[in-house]
């Protein structure tokens, strides 16, 4: 395996300002990719951009669910080279038990987690390399297992899995592979906020259920880098669980 397996690859990463998205950006950049970081918070993106190794990285302040905001920036970035990969991490978590979950919560979760992936995928495909490209979407363990208190989030992350499978079939003729990561709890600002809202004994129970303990964003980024790499050239429509053993028992 070459040390710089993504040398010169233009790569789109949404949700790149923090957490798993940022870890993916750092991993891809460290292995030679030129990254377009997309996120809603300019300050976080600027900090993230500064933390990337290598050259040619760009940032785009935009809501990934807003195609009009996304399209010009991606087009400009792709003018320097068609995109080889997209890692679509934009998303939000919501702790909202059903008794107090209103329609607006389900709508906002679908926008934050599903629409961001669908719209970014649409834009990516317009500027994807013609000789092969790869896309990774980010679901969650909540999308495949029942988790109390997060039904809107879980429904949205389940929809991401369905979206990914459908896109894998639809885009295979264009030589675009589409796969999904299914992470457990990887420590980030988003997961820390969730864990901080739980009583300590529940946090401990969640931790114990991860046989290898909580993960780090870098653990998920490592899997993402594999799925977009040429080493995964025969993998599409797959779901890779990265959860420290949470779902095996």
């Amino acid at each position, binding site marked *: 395996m070459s040390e710089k397996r993504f040398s010169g690859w233009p790569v789109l990463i949404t949700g790149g300002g923090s957490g798993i998205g940022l870890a993916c950006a750092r991993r891809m950049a460290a292995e030679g990719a030129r990254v377009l970081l997309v996120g809603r918070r300019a300050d976080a993106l600027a900090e993230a951009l500064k933390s990337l190794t290598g050259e040619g990285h760009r940032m785009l302040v935009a809501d990934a669910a807003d195609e009009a905001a996304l399209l010009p920036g991606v087009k400009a970035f792709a003018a320097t080279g068609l995109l080889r990969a997209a890692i679509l991490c934009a998303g939000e978590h919501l*702790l909202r*038990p059903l*008794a*107090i979950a209103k329609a607006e919560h389900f709508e906002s979760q679908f926008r934050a987690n599903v629409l961001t992936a669908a719209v970014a995928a649409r834009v990516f495909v317009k500027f994807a390399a013609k000789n092969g490209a790869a896309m990774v979407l980010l679901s969650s363990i909540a999308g495949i297992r029942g988790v*109390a*208190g997060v039904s809107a989030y879980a429904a949205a992350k389940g929809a991401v899995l369905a979206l990914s499978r459908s896109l894998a079939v639809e885009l295979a003729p264009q030589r675009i592979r589409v796969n999904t990561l299914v992470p457990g709890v990887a420590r980030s600002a988003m997961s820390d906020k969730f864990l901080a*809202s*739980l*009583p300590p004994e*529940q946090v401990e129970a969640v931790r114990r259920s991860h046989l290898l303990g909580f993960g780090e964003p870098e653990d998920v980024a490592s899997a993402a880098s594999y799925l977009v790499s040429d080493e995964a050239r025969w993998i599409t429509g797959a779901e890779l669980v990265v959860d420290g053993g949470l779902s095996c028992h």
Partner: protein
Amino acid sequence: MVSNEQIRQTVAEALNVDPESLQADTTLYTLPNFDSVQLLTLMVALDEIGVVLPPAQVAELRTYNDILALRRR
């Protein structure tokens, strides 16, 4: 400052009980189907109206009055 009546309405909605059934000495764990998910629901619902129950102390909640006392700390 959130009024006691707002808290009562919020707790009643979160736990799906009649607000009138919530008296100071009402024991939460004797309410219908009260469990860890309802406790979580209670925390999130109260947080939404600005009443933060410290997660580390919710295990101490026994009665409805404990909620009022905890938020005053």
